[in-house]
């Protein structure tokens, strides 16, 4: 994929498909590295499945015999000299604490580092399709600041007005843009 923000969009979809009530997207960025972690409390995977998901020929869908989301994410990290870690606990094995954490480390100094790209557009797309039963917490720690968003906080103010209302999406994107402007300025 041309931007890591597209891989993030793809990976978070997995959490939504797993029925997660909460998804945490954490980006930790230094001058030389970027770590992307997506953690959810969805139905999780058994150890066998967790081992298989990095295989491009493993998929749960019936339409095709390939599942490329996680393999693409792994490739993007490893081609910079980075790593991908995945931990998961299935609902069957633990009815209380289940879910998946996938974390990828990227070396920005590598010539093969895919740019992060338009993360605001990714968050807008995720929130547009979010529905009532899932909340997202997003944080991006940068060398000179932090950007964050919590859909739960926004819902608390909005009451019955849906998150997917166009004016709300515009507000969220504008807010993120101004947070990024502040966090990027070295003051």
């Amino acid at each position, binding site marked *: 994929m041309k931007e890591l923000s*597209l891989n993030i969009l*793809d990976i978070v979809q997995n959490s939504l498909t797993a029925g997660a009530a909460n998804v945490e997207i954490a980006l930790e960025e230094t001058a030389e590295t970027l770590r992307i972690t997506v953690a959810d409390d969805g139905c999780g995977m058994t150890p066998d499945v967790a081992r298989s998901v990095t295989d491009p020929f493993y998929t749960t869908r019936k339409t095709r015999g390939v599942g490329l989301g996680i393999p693409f994410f792994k490739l993007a990290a490893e081609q910079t000299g980075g790593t991908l870690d995945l931990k998961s606990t299935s609902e069957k094995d633990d009815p209380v604490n289940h879910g998946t954490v996938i974390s990828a480390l990227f070396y920005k100094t590598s010539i093969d580092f895919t740019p992060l790209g338009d993360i605001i557009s990714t968050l807008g797309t995720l929130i*547009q399709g979010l529905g009532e039963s899932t909340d997202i917490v997003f944080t991006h720690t940068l060398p000179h600041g932090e950007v964050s968003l919590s859909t739960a906080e926004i819902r608390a103010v*909005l009451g019955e007005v849906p998150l997917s209302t166009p004016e709300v999406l515009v507000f969220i994107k504008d807010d993120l843009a101004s947070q990024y402007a502040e966090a990027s300025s070295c003051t």
Partner: protein
Amino acid sequence: MKSLEELAKIRERMAGKVALREGENSVRIVVGMATCGIAAGARPVLNTLVDEVVKQGVSDKATVSQTGCIGICQYEPVVEVFEPGKEKVTYVKMTPDKAKRVVAEHIKGGNPVVEYTIGNTKI
């Protein structure tokens, strides 16, 4: 996060407006957003559809939603339009510019843009 007061104002403005429910009269615009779609460029197509539905004044009769793999990955980005009482229209190889035309001519005007449909597209 910047002031939540602005959000509260949005709530005040929207409160009382009846939200469109996916009922019998609504047109559903569904965008494929699986790995295939995302890689092919579905994100800007979705964002354009959401913006155009508002800009062209059809947000009271059309909803935009996302779906998983439709099964025709080589044709992505794919946009399906469901209208009660009419046959499903499948648009393929979509772009933001094509999306604007679909909202204007099909959603607003009632005439599907036949040249963008799967039956008329060779890859």
